[in-house]
Structures are given as C-alpha cells and as structure tokens.
C-alpha cells in the first residue's frame, strides 16, 4: 500500500475503476491531515466491512481513498480564508459607514448614566404617560424600576434600556422606509423577503461571528449592528403588510380626489397602516431586548453582563436576579408599546 495508514478506504474501487489511481497518488503520499477520530481508528481494531456500515461518500471518506480530494476541514478553512481576504475591503467601507452608530450608542449610554435617577425616573414617567395615557401603567413601570434600583440593578437596567432605545429607534428609522418601498414594488418585495427570512431564522450567535472579525470587540457598533439586523425584521414586514392591507376603497377615493402619491402616502396609507406598523415596533423592541442579552458576549453592557457572569462563574443568584430584571424590562416595554398601539387602534375603528 502506498498511502500512510492501513485502513482500506471504502471508495478505493471508484478511483481504481475510473483509472484515476495514478492521479490520486501523484505527488501526495499519506500526508492528509488526520483527525482525532482517524487516529483512534488507526489504533483500534480494524473494522469489519459490511454493507451495514457503508459510509456516505463524503469528502472525508473520498479523501481516504484518494488524497487529491479535499477534506471537509479544507472547505471551512477556505470559507474562513475567503472571508479574511474580503475583510479589509469590507472593513474599509463599513467601518466609516457604521462609525456614527458607535458614537450614538456611546453618547446615549453615557447620557443615561450621568442623568441622576431623580431626573430619569420622572422623565420615564412622562414618556410612559404620553405613550399610554394610563396612570396605572405609569405606576406599574415606576414600581418595577424602583424595585430594580432598590436591588442595585438600576445602572445595568439603564444601560440595557439605552441600547434598546437607540437600536429600536434606528430600526424604525430604517425599517419603515424599507417597508414602504417594499409595499410599492412587488419586485423589491420578492427580493427582500428571502433576506428577511434569513435574518429571522439565523441563530443570533451566528450574526456575531463575522462581526467580530470585521470590527473590534470593544466597539459598541459591533453589538449595535447585531441587534439592529436581528430586530429590524418585524418592523419592515409589518410596514409592508400594513400598507398593502389598506382598504382599496379608500385608496380609490384618494385617487378620485386627485391626491398625489405623496399626499396618498402620508395622508392615507401610513396613517391607516399605523396599527400594523406599531405592532411591528412592539415586536422590534422585544427582539432588541432578546438580542441585547446575547450581545453581552461581545461587550454590550447591561443586565446581560450579569446573566453572562451567572453562567460563567456559576453564580446562580446573580444570574437569576438579573434574569428577573430582564423580564421586568420586557414587561414594561411590551405593556407601554401595546398601550400605545391600542390607542392607535381605538382611534381608527371602522
């Protein structure tokens, strides 16, 4: 035998049969990288070959039979090298483009940090009141935040809140126009929906991997981009849907009165789609909150850091209490946006 190990590869016959044996052996004698599994197989008893344990003709199996075939690990290596080769170019474009995100996140974080609690809490009360017009909800929100402050989680909660404010705001700022554009062009909708599907189904951790290579882990924009990519999907989808669902009769009426497409968009379509858009904003905020916890892996400050500490150091209490804090924030954000949504709905019953 001319190759390095003595396990007879299952697929030898393929290359022998095709008369490729010489090509396979040319220039390479048994230097294929071996995995731990291969080494173990080498040391163990030789397998009895039967049809029941016929391996799938995968790259690794074929490589055993013919050294010219690449191994799977070479494929992942290739992807990595490809990405690294593109990295500098991508970074050259993306870095300055996304730099404002870092500034916004940094300044909002420091704003939330330097504002003393006795200004912040009343300010939030006012915001909640204007969004919901409900004193009960204001009382509930304040009770939750006071509880978090009482157990010394106020600073963490404010950091989380600051990141969510910035990211959700940017999601709406970018997502609503994209949704409007999608609702006006079937072609754009067909092109965008697969991207949105991908963003929505990709596991959150996977977003982080290429971002870590592109940007430095210490930059806030790293987690900012991850959160925005993850959370922007519902607001785009529901804006598109909402505008497409606007009553055709009303659109026809708008046309018959000679509205320009601009008048129609701002005077009819967006207002009538507002309940759906608001539902999208609610979802976007909730998804930002989910992502901001995961983003603590890449230095996002806030309650997620404590959760991470709980996991890493097995500090059960720290993890659970900060988890509770996240739940409270989620309830607050959900209730307030839902209350605002209900007000919009009530204003335009049919």
């Amino acid at each position, binding site marked *: 035998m001319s190759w390095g190990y003595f396990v007879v590869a299952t697929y030898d016959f393929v290359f022998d049969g095709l008369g490729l044996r010489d090509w396979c052996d040319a220039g390479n004698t048994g230097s294929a990288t071996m995995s731990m599994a291969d080494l173990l197989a080498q040391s163990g008893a030789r397998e009895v070959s039967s049809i029941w344990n016929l391996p799938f003709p995968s790259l690794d199996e074929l490589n055993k039979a013919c050294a010219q075939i690449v191994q799977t690990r070479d494929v992942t290596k290739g992807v990595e090298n490809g990405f690294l080769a593109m990295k500098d170019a991508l970074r050259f474009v993306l870095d300055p483009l996304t730099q404002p995100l870092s500034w916004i996140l940094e300044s909002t974080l420091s704003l939330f940090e330097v504002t003393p609690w006795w200004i912040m809490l009343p300010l939030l009360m006012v915001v909640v009141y204007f969004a919901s017009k409900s004193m009960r909800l204001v009382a509930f929100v304040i009770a939750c935040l006071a509880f978090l402050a009482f157990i010394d989680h106020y600073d963490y909660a404010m950091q989380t809140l600051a990141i969510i404010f910035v990211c959700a705001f940017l999601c709406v700022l970018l997502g609503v126009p994209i949704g409007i554009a999608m609702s006006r062009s079937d072609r754009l909708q067909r092109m965008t929906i697969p991207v949105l599907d991908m963003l929505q189904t990709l596991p959150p951790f996977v977003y982080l991997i290429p971002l870590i290579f592109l940007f430095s882990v210490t930059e806030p924009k790293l987690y900012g981009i991850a959160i925005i990519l993850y959370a922007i999907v519902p607001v785009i989808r529901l804006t598109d849907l909402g505008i497409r669902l606007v009553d055709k009769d009303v659109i026809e*009426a708008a046309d*018959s*009165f*000679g509205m*320009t497409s601009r*008048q129609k968009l701002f005077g*009819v379509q967006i207002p*009538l789609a507002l309940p759906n858009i608001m539902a999208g904003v609610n979802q976007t905020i909730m998804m930002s909150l989910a992502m901001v916890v995961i983003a603590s892996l890449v230095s996002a400050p806030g309650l997620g850091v404590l959760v991470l500490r709980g996991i890493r150091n097995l500090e059960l209490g720290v993890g659970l209490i900060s988890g509770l804090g996240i739940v409270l924030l989620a309830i607050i954000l959900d209730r307030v946006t839902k209350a605002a949504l209900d007000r919009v709905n009530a204003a*335009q*019953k049919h």
Partner: protein
Amino acid sequence: MSDKIKISIRNLYKIFGANPEDALNRVYGGTTKSELLEQNGHVLGLRDINVDMREGEITVIMGLSGSGKSTLIRHLNRLIEPTAGEIDIDGEDVLAYGEEKLRQLRRETMSMVFQKFALLPHRTVVYNAGTTLQVRGVPKQEFVVEAQKWLQRVGLQGFGEHYPHQLSGGMQQRVGIARALTSNSPIMLMDEAFSALDPLIRTDMQDLLLELQTELHKTIVFITHDLDEALKLADHLVILKDGYIVQQGEPQHILLNPNDPYIEDFVSDINRARVLKVRSIMTPLDGNPVPPGAHGEVDYDNTLESMIALSGGDTSHSYIVMKDGAAVGTLDMTELVRALVPRVASEAGARKY
C-alpha cells in the same frame, strides 16, 4: 336644465386581460363576450358605449352586477383606462390629458361618492368633508368653513368633531356626499352610493339628493342596480347588460316602451302607478279645445298613484292636465288603468341573466 352636453362617451370599449389590443380586433370582428372569454381568456368589460350626459341632469346607469356599470363610471375620471374610445368633458378629450391635467380634472371638475363611503377613519367628519379641498392645498381654516357649510346642508350639523366610526351608515354616506359637494365640482359621480344603506334611509338619501339637485343643478352620474331608485332619480336612464347598452332614454319612455325582453322583465316588477306620471300617458290637446265634462284639473307631473287616490278608483272620471297653468292634455282614468298593466307580462324568464 340646459341642452348642453357635459359628458360625451363615444365608442368606448374596455377589455380586461393580458393583450387587450388583439382581443379588441376580435370584438370589432363580432366576437361576443362569452366567446372572447372562452377563446382568449379576456373579459369584455364594455362594448361600444355611446352616451351623452347633459349638463344639470341626473344620468342613471343601471344594470345588474357584472354589467359593467362600475367600470363605466370609473372611466369618466380615468380610475380605469379604456381600451378604445373617446370621453369628452366640456368638449375636451380627457383621454389625451397628461398626469397634471388629469389630477386637476379629478380635483376640480369631478367628485365621487362611493358605495362603501371610503371615508378616512382616522380623521374627523369635518376633515373628511374637507379632504377634497385639502388635496388642492386649501389651508385648514378655509376648508373647515366650507366643509361645515356642506355638512350642515346634508343634515350633519354638530357632528363635525365626530369620527366616521361613531356615525351610522346613512350618516357616513352624508359625509361622503358633503365631501363631494365641498369640492364644488360641476360633476358628481355616484357609484352605488345608496346601495349599502337600508331601504328607509335610502329613500331619505334619494330625497336629499333630489332636493340638493333642484338647488345646485350639478351634472350627476348615478350608478345603481335598483330600478326603483333609477326611475326615481333619472332624467336620463341608461340600461347596461353584459357591458353594452340595452336601451337608454327618458325613464318614463323606457318603462312604457321597453325594447328588449331583458328590460321588459325588469320593468314588470315595478310599481307602475308610483313611477309613471300623468304626462307620459295623457292624450295631448295638440291645439284642440279643452273637452267639457272633466272632473278636475291635475298637474302634469302627478303620479298615477295620486290620480287613483284623487278619483277614488272611479274609472269613468277624466281630468284636464295642466302644465305651468295651461291645459296641455286630457287624462282618461280607463286609459290610466290600462297603462298600469305591463305591455308584455314576463313569462320569458329573462331573469336568468
């Protein structure tokens, strides 16, 4: 009422489908609606429509669903583009209009009332009524004044700050009418405007429209599937079926002289006594002297129903018909009773359409 023709539709065709030009040539060659659908998969929406609508008149376009009446009215403001034909408004071909002129036409010359009201749910009633001015860029304080005026005129004073969903269907349609009137356009298009309302409210709204019309003399194009409504409102009645005009003319004339089994079947269900007027069945004097022995004088525009009430059901009576204080004809009650029977009783079953 003047004799000026406000809207003139000439040889209008509309074909729905992927290749209407090709289908149009087939229709010119005599292909019927069902053949076209079967062979080409194209729908013949309108076929060779010719209508003249006079200024200040109510032209009613009547037909069952699928007859193309809603398609036809949407051609007038080009919400639907025709496949072939000509539409002249005030002598100008609107099909030649560019975007800007078309918008101006929709803003200033025509206003439309919709079957499902199509109000903006997030705006107050007064804002809705003012929409037609607001799109022209009229500032709020001005269009609100104008809108309030018309809301009052249609009987909605004090409802300006309500939202549409707080009003009943009939009131919402009043807002729809006020909105069309606020635009102060000479032409009003009404697409089954009263069809979604219940019968009593519908009668109210018809009366309101007629009352407004005696004052405003707009050119109204009214679409309906209800013959009673059509006969009540129409100065000129156009009956559509499967996209072509079966008969058009003065409603009383159509009622007495239906030229198609389809229309005969239609009119056989009508309460003729209420719809027919004395003028349609009287014997004109034509310069002859007024015959003696009449039981009284009656107005030219009286309905036959009122005549039966007046005579107490006695068929031996006869009356002198007066128009503007002068005798124009005589009415024999026997004649009247005969006119109440439809010319041909419907046995052909044209209802299958």
